[in-house]
């Protein structure tokens, strides 16, 4: 899943590009996996088709995907594997815990705050 914040200073196409690039680097989207059609992703995100098309074009220029007429956009195999998915999750968890501690919270409070929305 990807998320776009239209109020963010980062333009929507860059947010899409960065999130997809991260998913490809950490192996969530493996070599050969197909990305959703441009029109479908644009409709799901409520964005213009050109915005998603630009993100795909930049991914293609960055060597992440290849686009063929009629064959869709497919993920290319990456020469150097990026950080593993687990490592990225640990990195985000460390950042979250650091923020909770900065606000005066404890590890138990941080875990409880995570499990509550997950159970809903």
């Amino acid at each position, binding site marked *: 899943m990807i998320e776009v914040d239209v109020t963010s200073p980062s333009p929507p196409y860059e947010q899409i590009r960065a999130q997809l690039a991260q998913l490809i680097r950490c192996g969530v989207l493996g070599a050969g996996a197909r990305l959703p*059609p441009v029109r*479908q992703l644009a409709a*799901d995100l409520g964005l213009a088709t050109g915005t998603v098309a630009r993100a795909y074009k930049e991914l293609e220029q960055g060597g992440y995907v290849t686009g063929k007429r009629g064959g869709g956009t497919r993920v290319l195999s990456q020469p150097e594997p990026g950080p593993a998915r687990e490592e990225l999750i640990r990195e985000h968890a460390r950042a979250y815990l650091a923020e909770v501690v900065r606000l005066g919270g404890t590890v138990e409070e941080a875990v409880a705050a995570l499990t509550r929305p997950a159970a809903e």
Partner: protein
Amino acid sequence: MAAVLVLPLTALLVLVAVLLAVLLSLNRVVRVPAGGDAAVLRATSRRLLWPRLAGLAAGVAASWVVFAWDGLGRGPMLAAPVLGVGLLVGTLAGELTVPRPHGPVRGASLEIRRARDYLPAFSAPLAAVLSLIAVVLLTVTSVAAADDDLGRPGRALAMISADGTVRSAVGPWPGWFYAWPMLAVLAAAFLLSALVVHRVVQRGRPGLDAAARAVDDAQRAHSARVVTAAYGLCVALPLAGVAVVAAGALFRQSDLAGWAGPAGFAVLGVALIAVASAVWYLAELFSRPRIRTS
């Protein structure tokens, strides 16, 4: 005499379709998890339903006009496809008015939606088979057709002897005179159906939680079923009429040509398949999935 038979038969077939629709609706229960934004889902349902009903009403009105357009039978032949096209236009209008995702933060899954995920497994191939039968039948009847007594091309089935003398000519016969308007309307209905299905598949999802996705998928599948049923009626009803008319002409020529009798029965079989398909598609149109939260 024919009208006396046709009206009760039509009423009986519509009744069968309604009963079948009730059975289909009872068996078509979609279980969705609790949750989701009920207001958004209700708004989407309304936006899909009202334009579809408006399209149906416009289609009925247009088919009424078309029915009386031609005294030579082309009006009744095109009435059903015109009604179907009205329904397809209404469905497309409904799909176009579904609200786009909005708000500052928007999410999308990386799923790939395809038409075959939503098209009904039985009705869609049946529509393709009926289309093929219609094209083949109209091609054969057009090739075999002759001019009628007033010189209109492709309106009669003539038995011609070796010396070129016309021994017998009967009509109406579904030659080119009837084939081209029917094939043109079917081509338009097919292209419109493809356009609506494309829109059904590509339009944005209203929400990403499991309940919203399940209801959205049920709505898309229902829209695809309506499109298939509308297109199926566009093909099946005129095909039934064409086959009955062709069978009648063949039976009247069976004294002069031995092959005409068996060919007449074969074409009558096509008419029966087309009528049964039309009843099925009508039932599909009347049925609605029942959405239950689990």
